[in-house]
């Protein structure tokens, strides 16, 4: 009930916002903020009240929905989903505050779409029925398309439709795989979309879902669907466009949550449901056995080098996201304790850090109206607070020990080293390059002589600091006390590894 409330309160908020008159903009913003703060409060409560000692799903709701196809409204949380629910619920109000001043037209439609998007994301992380999972997954597409297309930058139309088409392409393949799983789950009448049931069936020897060949194909179907979202090379090209054109708050959601939907799906469906399929792509034998790790490696190195070449601040952050998601893939491919723990932690950390980075880029853009890294210089003397927070975010992102980015990446690499020694060693190039582009950016934007054009640039204001402080605190806390998050999903990871080792 609590969980359903959390998912559908933003939807209720959307209806409420739509009923408000268009002119009362302040009221609309406050209402939206309220409707995103309630899920946050509930998420914090769930985070505290969640029983960490068990891997089982908690706060389960399971009621029939479409009986003819045995579809249920089945939601629940385990350690992984509660972590990501917290991240989603946290970024909700932050994005509303970040959109407070710089959305000029159609604030009502913007907020309504944003609330719809939040329902889609929250529902996705809580869904335990494959069909429901898919519906929530797709529910995020439409609001995102409008949010980029209407409120985005100069090339917004192109970026919006590219995002939409890429993701839809991935998800139709996922749909085929999903229906195939459903049809093979039992005799007519006994078929199911229930994720826990399917996971159990898939590891039952002799069941149709247990067949290696079948698992490989459906693994691929789901994988492409999620890979577009992560994004994994070569499905990544929508991301730089979407990020550059999207308004700040939407970039935050895109990097912070939507990318995590891809990796969450990989863990929840691809790994847990198709362990044999996973084994085929991660057993370290031959090309296919190394393929997933190879993709992680490519993401890390390719993303980092692309970031190094960028002169657009936002594009740099976008490519750095591709690189950092590579660590998640590498960690998952290792499928051992430290690899998976590192990957999940990295998902959360990247959500926090990339959200900070995009907010910071937004702050600068709102003042200077461009993002050309070489066009600044010496801002450190003009905006000391801004410079301080940016330095914190950069350091966290490049993996400085003591900040959160380090822990996730180190654990992922540690796990991966066990299985893919060469690829892991080569992947560390990405960390070096990461340090290079962040430090170089720091130098170009904040150090040196102040560009005379920006002598009057105002310092970061209270509202903007308000959006950044909670995230900054999280990066420090998770850097020195990672168990704060790891404790949440330790049991879930152990459980997952048991499933993986059972084959």
């Amino acid at each position, binding site marked *: 009930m609590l969980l359903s409330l959390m998912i559908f309160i933003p939807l209720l908020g959307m209806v409420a916002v739509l009923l408000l008159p268009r002119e009362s903009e302040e009221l609309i913003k406050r209402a939206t903020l309220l409707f995103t703060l309630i899920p946050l409060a509930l998420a914090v409560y769930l985070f505290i009240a969640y029983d960490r000692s068990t891997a089982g799903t908690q706060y389960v709701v399971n009621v029939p*929905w*479409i*009986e*003819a*196809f045995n579809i249920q409204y089945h939601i629940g949380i385990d350690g992984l989903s509660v972590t990501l629910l917290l991240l989603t619920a946290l970024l909700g109000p932050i994005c509303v505050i970040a959109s407070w001043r710089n959305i000029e037209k*159609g604030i009502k*439609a913007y907020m309504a779409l944003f609330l719809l998007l939040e329902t889609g994301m929250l529902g996705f992380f809580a869904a335990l029925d494959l069909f429901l999972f*898919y*519906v929530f997954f*797709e*529910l995020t*597409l*439409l609001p995102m*398309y*409008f949010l980029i*297309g*209407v409120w985005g930058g100069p090339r*917004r*139309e192109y970026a*919006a*439709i590219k995002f*939409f*088409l890429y993701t*839809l*392409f991935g998800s*139709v*393949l996922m*749909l*085929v795989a999903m*229906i*195939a799983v*459903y*049809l093979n789950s039992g005799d007519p009448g006994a078929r199911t979309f229930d994720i826990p049931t399917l996971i159990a069936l898939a590891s039952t020897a002799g069941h149709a879902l247990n067949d290696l060949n079948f698992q490989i194909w459906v693994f691929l179907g789901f994988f492409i669907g999620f890979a577009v979202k992560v994004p994994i090379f070569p499905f990544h090209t929508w991301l730089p466009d979407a990020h550059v054109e999207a308004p700040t708050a939407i970039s935050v959601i895109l990097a912070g949550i939507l990318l995590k939907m891809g990796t969450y799906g990989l863990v929840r469906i691809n790994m847990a449901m198709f362990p044999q399929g996973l084994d085929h792509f991660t057993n370290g034998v031959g090309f296919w056995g190394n393929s997933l790790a190879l993709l992680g490696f490519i993401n890390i190195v390719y993303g980092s080098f692309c970031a190094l070449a960028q002169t657009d601040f936002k594009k740099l952050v976008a490519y750095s996201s591709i690189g950092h998601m590579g660590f998640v893939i590498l960690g998952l491919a290792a499928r051992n304790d430290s690899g998976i723990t590192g990957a999940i932690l990295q998902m959360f950390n990247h959500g926090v850090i990339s959200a900070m980075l995009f907010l910071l880029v937004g702050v600068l853009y709102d003042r200077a109206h461009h993002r050309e890294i070489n066009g600044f210089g010496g801002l450190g003397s003009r905006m000391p607070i801004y410079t301080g927070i940016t330095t914190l975010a950069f350091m966290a992102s490049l993996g400085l020990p003591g900040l959160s980015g380090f822990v996730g990446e180190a654990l992922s690499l540690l796990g991966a080293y066990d299985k893919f020694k060469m690829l892991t060693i080569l992947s560390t190039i990405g960390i070096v390059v990461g340090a290079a582009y962040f430090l170089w950016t720091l130098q170009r934007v904040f150090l040196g002589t102040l560009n005379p054009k920006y002598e009057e640039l105002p310092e970061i204001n209270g509202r903007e600091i308000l959006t950044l402080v909670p995230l900054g605190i999280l990066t420090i806390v998770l850097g020195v006390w990672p168990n704060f998050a790891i404790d949440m999903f330790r049991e879930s990871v152990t459980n997952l590894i048991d499933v993986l080792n059972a084959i």
Partner: protein
Amino acid sequence: MQPLSNIESLLYFSPEILLVIFAAAVIILDLVVKDRESVAVAYLSLVGCLCTFAAVLFTHFSFGDEGPVSLFLGMIRLDVFSSFFKVLLLLATAATILFSLRSEELDARLKGEYYALLLAITFGMFLMASSTNLLMIFISLETVSLTSYILAGFLTHSPRSSEAAFKYITYGAVASGTMLFGLSLLFGMAGTGDLAQISGRLTELLAAGEIAPLAVLIAITFVLAGVGYKIASVPFHMWSPDVYEGAPIPITAFLSVASKSAGFALFIRFFYAGFGSTELMQAVDWPFMLAIVSALTMTVGNLAALPQQNVKRLLAYSSIAHGGYLLMGGVLLTSQGVGAILFYLVVYLFMNLGAFYVVVLIANEVGSEMVEGYRGLSSRAPLVAWAMVIFLVSLAGIPPFAGFFGKWILFTAVLEQGYYWLALVGLLNSVVSLYYYARIVKAMFFEDAGEETTNVSFSTGTFALLSVFVIPTIFIGFINIFYTFSNISVSVIPMQ
């Protein structure tokens, strides 16, 4: 139950009789009422639809437990399947009458004939949904075709409309001639016109080796020409973009929904009742042929829709593509497949009629049928623009709208039969289709209207009618009862 005699049948034929009576009444009323602006005939036809609806319910429930009945010595059948389609067709007709009331392109002097013809075409479609005899199938198809030629050419002052009617009639004549030839072949082989008996006769003859499977396949293909023409499947689709573009918008909406539904009713009954037995399918591989036709239809429809600038024409191609999706359910007609077609037709009725209603509204208020005319609509008429988004996104098959649920059960039915390639073609096609639907959305939301910035206001009635289409488009997928349509298909299987 034995087929009823002609006299006994009349009572169960009351919906059709009522339609004819009201069609005649509309003509008479039009002669009596002198006022050109009067809308009395339109309302009389609406009443006609309502009375017919009551009659459909009456006949449907009056045969009760005795099961489906054959009327007129086996010419037509009254079963759940035909009642389902009658309700669907009445909905489409009523919606078309309401659209026509709002449309400003129709000639006021001809409205008596117009509404009478609408009721007449509905009568023909009723017969299409219930015919079980080859002869009756042909007659019903011709009734519908002849009436639709006139309706397509109803804008007498518009050359495009006349061109549409002419093209329609030329293609139609060829298609029905081909179909008639196919029917005569079947009749010649089986020695009977009754669909239920044809199946058994052909199976026997094929088993005995007295006729070649190829002969049956040729006959089926010829019949498919006629049916394919009605549902605008490749390669019999060429008429539809021109006709849809040239015809009055309400008629385009009507043809794209009602004509297609009636075509599918006939298609399902013909193939499912006549050729659905396993032995026949093994001897004559018509499902494979249909799979090819289906894949081609959706691909051609979607690719041709991509460059269109005229929204009516774009929706025409999109409706060809939807015919292709629907045909997927017809490949290996299982009860799931038929159920999926019926479900999709219901969904399609609401979303497609809704989209056409927006086209009517925009044509009236903005005076344009082109995509450019939709620019900046999000600020000029936000509610209508959002309604259009819902229809288009639903047509593209994206959750949570009904179009997604429709596609999903279609694809499930196809995958269940192992046609993985067909499902993949279908799904990739929906990705393509999103692109052209999004072009309209883009014009409405991402582009500015230019000088035209005045708000367009609509009456409350308009919004009420719009919500009649919007609400089902959002919610049908969430309602359990709609997923039980596969039970309806059982009634189509003939009594032996």
